């Protein structure tokens, strides 16, 4: 948990919904991400970057460009560009593994397709006359978080690529003389300002949760924001230190929730509530149901409960449904689920 120069996650004032949504995704990566919609200067990007403080650790093969949990002699390792390591794996030796924090990989809006999916390693091809893959951002983001700032401004064909691999958790490369597949399962976190154009419904659907953020309304909390920001800018190190205790507490709570999650049970009648909720508001397909169930379980785990309560379902609905009710292009994204909630 290095401090660097990142504003601590726990020191963000207000924006509880956004913070919770991000935390839920850390507890349960199968929620497949969160879309944060809102105006400028509401701490969207700060919150995502600050996640680095509270991310849990995973076990990975040391320096593996694909973030594999273990060697995969039948698949990825056979064509891996890291020769020493892959030679070991192919020879039946267990590769060296390390524990490190989950990564937040940032996908810049101007990213080109070849950098995203991976491409031919130019230098190697010219020097050695052999082809080798140069892994792209999707490889680095495997088992981590892929963060796209201003996701609605992303180039169209890059969006297609994201959709493709987000769908199945596999990135297939068939380009520039390279033929390769590797796992790419990531939590997709996007921020956007709806004034600058909407997302395609298909991409919207890939985000498990969606939150709408706006500037704080009470003068008091606005003052707190200013105070903390100034304190941080003046002396980031001691500011981080002041919040370290709280950060640690949150990390531990997340860790407990991760352990508790598999044991959380959902009463059958609540399952029916979820299904009828989704049917009533009219969503496409079944992703909403599945994500809602997972979210409700995650909430229960985060609260330290073994059983899902109706209020968890309600909170889950607020996170899962808003962007899914917009089934077709041109229907506005609902910002408050309670507006349409059946009585």
């Amino acid at each position: 948990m290095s401090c660097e120069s990142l504003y601590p996650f726990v020191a963000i004032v207000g924006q509880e919904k956004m913070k919770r949504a991000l935390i839920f995704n850390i507890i349960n990566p199968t929620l497949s991400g969160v879309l944060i919609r809102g105006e400028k200067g509401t701490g969207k990007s700060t919150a995502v970057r600050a996640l680095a403080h509270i991310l849990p650790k995973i076990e990975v093969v040391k320096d593996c460009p694909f973030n594999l949990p273990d060697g995969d002699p039948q698949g990825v390792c056979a064509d891996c560009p890291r020769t020493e390591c892959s030679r070991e794996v192919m020879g039946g030796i267990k590769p060296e593994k390390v524990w490190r924090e989950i990564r937040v990989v940032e996908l810049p809006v101007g990213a080109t397709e070849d950098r995203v999916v991976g491409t031919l390693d130019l230098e190697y091809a010219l020097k050695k006359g052999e082809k080798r893959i140069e892994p792209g951002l999707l490889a680095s983001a495997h088992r981590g978080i892929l963060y796209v700032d201003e996701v609605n401004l992303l180039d169209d064909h890059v969006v297609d690529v994201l959709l493709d691999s987000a769908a199945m958790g596999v990135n297939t490369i068939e380009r520039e003389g390279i033929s390769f597949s590797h796992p790419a399962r990531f939590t997709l976190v996007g921020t956007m300002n709806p004034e600058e154009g909407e997302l395609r419904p298909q991409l919207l659907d890939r985000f498990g949760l969606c939150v709408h953020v706006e500037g704080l309304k009470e003068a008091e909390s606005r003052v707190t924001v200013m105070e903390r920001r100034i304190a941080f800018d003046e002396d980031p190190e001691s500011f981080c230190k002041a919040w370290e205790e709280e950060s640690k507490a949150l990390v531990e709570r997340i860790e407990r929730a991760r352990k508790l999650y598999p044991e959380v049970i959902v009463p059958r009648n609540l399952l029916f509530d979820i299904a009828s909720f989704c049917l009533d508001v009219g969503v496409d397909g079944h992703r909403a149901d599945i994500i809602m169930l997972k979210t409700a379980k995650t909430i229960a785990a985060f609260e330290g409960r073994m059983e899902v309560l109706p209020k968890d379902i309600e909170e889950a609905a607020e996170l899962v449904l808003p962007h899914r009710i917009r089934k077709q292009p041109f229907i506005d994204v609902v910002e408050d689920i309670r507006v349409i909630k059946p009585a």
Partner: protein
Amino acid sequence: MQIFQKIYPFSAIVGQEKLKKALILNVINPAIGGVLIRGEKGTAKSTAVRSLAGLLPEIPSVMGCSFSCDPQNPLEWCSRCRSLRQPLPVVFKRIPVVTLPLNATEDRVVGSIDFEKAIQRGERLFYPGVLAKAHRGILYIDEVNLLDDYIADLILDVAASGINRVEREGISFSHPSRFILVGTMNPEEGDIRPQLLDRFGLCVEVAGERDLERRVELMNLREEFDSDPEGFLKRFEEESRSLAWSILAAREFLPRVKVADYIRKFIADLCLENNVAGHRADIVMEQAAKALAALNRRSHVTIEDIREVAPMVLKHRRREAAPPSPPPPRPSEDDRNEKPSSPELQRENEEKPFQPPNNQPETASTKPEAQPEPENNETGSEQERITYEQVLERVFEIGETFKVRKISAPKDRVIRRGSGRRSRTRTAQKQGRYVRSSLKGDGSDIAIDATLRAAAPYQIRRRGEATLAVHLTSQDIRHKIREKRVGNFLLFVVDASGSMGAEGRMAAAKGAIMSLLLDAYQKRDRVAMVSFRRNEAEVRLPPTSSVELAARLLRELPIGGRTPLSAGLMRAYEVVRTVLLKDPSSKPIVIVITDGKANVSIDRSKKPVEEAIFIARRFTLDERIYPIVVDTEKRGIVQFGLARKLAEVMEAPYFRIEDLRAENLVKIIKEASQ
């Protein structure tokens, strides 16, 4: 491969019986030629296809052949197998499922020279592409409607002949490539080309489960799978195995299935009545029915079999009586079409009037007859003559939307910037999809893979004192050809004067604009809107790529007042000028929606209509501007035809608002372009 092990099992998919059946039939009888799966998001489309891989039987193929040649079928061997000594060694391989990613480049689709071998040994060897890997297997394209046209052409070409002939980079090679084409698509992202559509033997529509019990079951299963994939797979292992076994048995049984003459006649009748193009439907239907009979271990195809497969065969091929219109997507027709119990019922379905695809937003579903709001009735919507100053501001609902015909600026080879899907263009930026390479270029965007392939065979000769492994000379350099669809710039110039309020014209006009906006959304166009009413014109929406914003503004667009047409055109011209200054290579499409009855001029000394015509002439001065005039005047005894005159002056195609509908527009665009 480890990464593919943990795929949700096919047999655990809840519901989607038709989808599963279609996939299984294709595995039993590859002659069916594939499935297109259309449907909303999150309905297990991709999951079903990917999990199918686990059920596929093993097939005999020539050992060491990268094309999985069939030892039993010497006629279809690749060049290599033909040259080898008989008998060829045989291995059993599982039927492959090969994914074609949307960003595939040409060299990987058809195959290319193996530059590694070429550099090391100076030999020109063929490095098989996706089409080789997919031979005798399944070629799977997710989001097939977003596939690049150029790559789609390559695939169509090979799918038609069953042979992939490669003549490139000094390689001459041909190998068989017969595959089952499986594609998924979400119709709201745009439609698929008719030629490509016809290649898919079957087509199934999928939708979410409506039944609560099953939704709950589905949720539970999915959650169970996510928390313990191994245990879950084990639980369904037995079921998967028995399904795989029955597929294998059906494959072996298939050659014994016979089709009686009366069945053949029934198929032909069915296809005729549905007005399908060509004979593929007949053939596919027979093959699919045979596969179904084989699955049920019957040696004869029955009428029942035909009834079950017919909807899947005809769904995407059925046409309206008018031949040129492409098969419309019909998500709104459900059960009745799924189970045609007799040819009579089929006919009945066919005679149903064209239903617009049900993908318009709810707010826009108001019919064009939608009358103005009652409280405004005293302003006399029925009357043709209106005292304009009295007219209050009104906001009309958006009229019925419909699918519009393709409007695009003529194709060209100008290199331009932008992003979108309307017109295909070469891009000079290092953006866009790299599809293939060429010798021409300025050296800024080198296709290194193609360059290496070009240089590879000469490496042995060039090997010298240099430090790099590869010796490149200038004639080796290849440049990337990137292609992307550039969205056009659409400028809507909307008449919002009081006269548009008459007879629900505004509702119809809004409907038309909304339809064009939906179209613009799919093609990623940039839009802007100028409206004019009372004494002035305003830029309601400056150029933006947010089509949503345009739709919202359109919804709120008030009308009333006089018609300052000339001011509107003036404003539009200014907007277009700015756009052209910013991006000189763009080709803005200006859509003027008016009845042409100008009655306010900018310069009071001039007549409004004459002034409007004078300004309209300016649009012809710059040939990059592509104007279109949509006339909202109702057909009647008294017709002023002013909008038509406007169109003549602007040298623009002229449409009536009702012509914008898909069925009519083809004809009119043709007329306009001649």
